């Protein structure tokens, strides 16, 4: 199969907060470099940074400190975060927010005296979340997108990465095989350095929040390349996703946290409150507790018509609710639901993957020239991500990656040779669904969503995860034997649906294997057969990789390089 060959100095995959910041920093650090940004969708429009509602955690308020932000991140992450990364995150967030405001033109909400407004966010000991109303992500991504478009950066929009390609000798990255989704043509982009910033996004669960373009392609390619992934069992669920039936893309999208904080009630199918049976804080309990409670109600069959629970706000006064949550009320109304005055069905929904590629605090991976930032990188959040640390993570490490990559590319004389066999094999693998007879791809997707939801979901045990592993293996075989019944590669969404499913199945296997290996319950990972937190001093995290076609998981002791359990960097 023919392909077009291109060369660039710096190649960036993804245009969320990490990818765009990397492009900006790399080009500004060294304007001589040819910087290319390749995106599965349109620049700044796909990915999840744009969807950030809450805000950006930063220790900028008088009385707050980087050390306090760091301690909240470590404690919130149940002592599993890679401490050097977490510290780098908290330190650099200060600079990054000032950069967003002063150099990119973001405008975060202000207090009456003109200073930055910091709002309270769950799990933090200080009000440190800067925001732009409840649409912080749109402000950040729109301003970033404008800055990148104003620079001579090469754009490759609607280009899907198919494989990360090592050099022939295997000692550095050599490029990426892509397919132009618009015309179906293959492209080999050779690069001196590559950033993987495609964003995780656990869309293999029945209910999920991330944008539709997300399908774990980055992590699937990392597995193919032989990289190690850590904390892969750590899938964060948001307790209140909209539930509107199986056949609508609205299902799974987030109804904001603030609804419960403001006094919203959760009701079972019979209209009874249930949260107080699980936690004294009721509906105001943390995300993980509320998610587990709803999941347990669902398993017990006390559900609404679509199989979830209700959120009810009307006891607070419909007008008051409409005034306080105008965006949420309008969104529900657009979709046919009365949030202010009626009841809306909700369900826990897979929101964020804490796990990802093992990296250094400066975003380097184990392969020279390959960098990883944003949700594709594991380590910063450990077992649980604080609300407001997600966009901080992507923008902080994206910028760092851009600086590092510019320095790296400046030192590399020439492009490494690509292993031709790998290129041919990757092209061939991507064409499988065009060769096979038509299969029921929709049914495979449907079953995958249920397998992960039921077997590796909010509550887990060994028997359930083993069953899920067997089912995943069957689905993988079925997908490989099934085609889309169509040969035309031009803007063919069904072909990409198949490729998305392939990535999701590959990464689902890792989530299940890591979940089996982790025999305690911390943060997002809850084992009904191992409900205890376990000794903090002996904390371990999982590291998974593919060897000889199967997934191996080992446990690695946490390196308490900055602070040990029982200690703190702050006084209270």
């Amino acid at each position, binding site marked *: 199969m023919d392909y077009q060959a291109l060369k660039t100095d710096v190649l960036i995959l993804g245009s969320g907060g990490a990818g765009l910041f990397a492009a900006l920093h790399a080009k500004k650090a060294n304007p001589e470099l040819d910087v290319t940004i390749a995106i599965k969708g349109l620049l700044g429009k796909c990915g999840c940074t744009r969807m950030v509602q809450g805000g950006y955690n930063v220790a900028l308020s008088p009385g707050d400190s980087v050390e306090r932000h760091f301690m909240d991140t470590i404690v919130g992450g149940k002592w599993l975060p890679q401490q050097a990364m977490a510290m780098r995150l908290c330190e650099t967030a200060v600079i990054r927010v000032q950069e967003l405001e002063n150099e990119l033109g973001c405008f975060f909400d202000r207090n009456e005296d003109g200073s930055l407004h910091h709002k309270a966010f769950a799990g933090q000991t200080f009000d440190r979340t800067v925001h732009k109303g409840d649409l912080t992500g749109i402000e950040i991504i729109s301003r970033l997108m404008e800055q990148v478009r104003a620079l001579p950066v090469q754009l490759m929009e609607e280009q899907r990465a198919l494989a990360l390609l090592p050099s022939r000798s295997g000692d550095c990255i050599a490029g990426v095989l892509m397919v132009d989704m618009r015309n179906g043509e293959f492209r080999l982009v050779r690069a001196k350095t590559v950033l993987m910033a495609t964003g995780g996004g656990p869309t293999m669960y029945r209910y999920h929040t991330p944008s539709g373009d997300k399908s774990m392609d980055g992590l699937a390619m990392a597995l193919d390349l032989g990289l190690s992934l850590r904390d892969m069992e750590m899938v964060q669920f948001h307790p209140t996703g909209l539930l509107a039936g199986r056949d609508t893309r*609205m299902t799974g999208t987030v109804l904001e946290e603030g609804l419960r904080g403001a006094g919203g009630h959760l009701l079972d199918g019979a209209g009874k409150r249930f949260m107080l049976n699980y936690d004294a804080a009721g509906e105001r309990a943390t995300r993980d507790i509320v998610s587990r409670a709803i999941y347990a109600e669902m398993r017990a069959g006390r559900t609404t018509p679509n199989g979830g629970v209700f959120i009810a706000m009307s006891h607070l006064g419909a007008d008051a609710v409409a005034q306080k949550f105008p965006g949420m009320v309008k969104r529900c109304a*657009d979709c046919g639901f009365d949030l202010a005055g009626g009841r809306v069905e909700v369900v826990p929904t897979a929101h964020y993957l804490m796990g990802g590629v093992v990296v250094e605090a400066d975003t380097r991976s184990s392969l020279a020239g390959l960098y990883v930032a944003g949700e594709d990188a594991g380590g910063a959040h450990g077992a649980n991500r604080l609300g407001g640390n997600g966009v901080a993570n992507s923008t902080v490490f994206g910028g760092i990656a851009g600086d590092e990559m510019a320095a790296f590319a400046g030192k590399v004389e020439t492009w490494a040779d690509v292993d031709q066999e790998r290129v041919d094999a990757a092209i061939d693998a991507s064409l499988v669904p065009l060769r096979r007879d038509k299969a029921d791809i929709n049914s495979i997707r449907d079953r995958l969503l249920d397998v992960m939801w039921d077997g590796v979901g909010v509550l887990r045990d060994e028997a359930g995860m083993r069953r899920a592993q067997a089912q995943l293996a069957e689905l993988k075989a079925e997908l490989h034997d099934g085609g889309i019944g169509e040969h035309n590669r031009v803007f*063919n*969404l069904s072909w990409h649906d198949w490729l998305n499913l392939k990535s999701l199945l590959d990464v689902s296997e890792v989530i299940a294997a890591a979940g089996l290996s982790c025999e305690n319950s911390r943060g997002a990972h809850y084992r009904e057969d191992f409900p205890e937190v376990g000794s903090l001093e002996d904390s371990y995290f999982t590291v998974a990789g593919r060897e000889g076609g199967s997934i191996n998981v080992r446990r690695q002791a946490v390196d308490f390089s900055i602070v040990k359990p029982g200690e703190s960097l702050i006084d209270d």
Partner: protein
Amino acid sequence: MHDSTSIQVRVWRGDAAGGDFADYEVPQQPSQTVLDVVTWIQRHADATLSYRFACRVGMCGSCAMMVNGVPRWTCRTHVNKVAQDNRLTLEPLRNLPVIKDLACDMTVFFDKWKAAEGHFSGSLTRDRPVAAISPRDRLRRAANAAIECINCAICYAACDVVSWQADYLGPAALNRAWSLQNDIRDTNRAARLQAVSANGGCMHCHSQQGCASYCPNELNPTASIAGLKRQAAGSFLKKKYPEHYA
């Protein structure tokens, strides 16, 4: 006769070389957006249908198309609100080149955003604290009123001037320029005013309000463009009659 529990959908199929409508019958669901209708067709009726979406919740501005002749975001448009006699006609956004079926090439839209100097230039660096600005400040409020644009190009598709005059910058780019003209931190206001008042700029707006009528976020680009016209006129008068403005 058709089943009353189904929707009759006409979808424009084709590419830059041309195309035609194809008809589909889609089962009706209680919760169903126009995006869900398109998805059903691609998944169950014709696997080759091309369209674009990402966020599913009205944040990314990827999924806009013409729905019964009107530009709309499809992820948040319930079928019940737009179907006429259970019929939908779907076409790619007006005023943009089509790539295939319902997906347009947005390059020209963003090129105009850039041509309108639609990006911030500041004087402070990342080492400095952010500027103290009161949320009540008049200019800040004006900048804020125009800021929540998701660049979905619905206004661009709704604008008749864009359809008549290919080089007209269009409502979204000019609206962004107006927001920046009110941003007291920005240092590029003179050049931007020149860019938006040159040929193809704000003076071409006929104030027909198509943009404001269809903006899903209820922004008012017409008002923003009127603001730019005032600034441009003021700037012209200052240059022509400097003695009056001394």
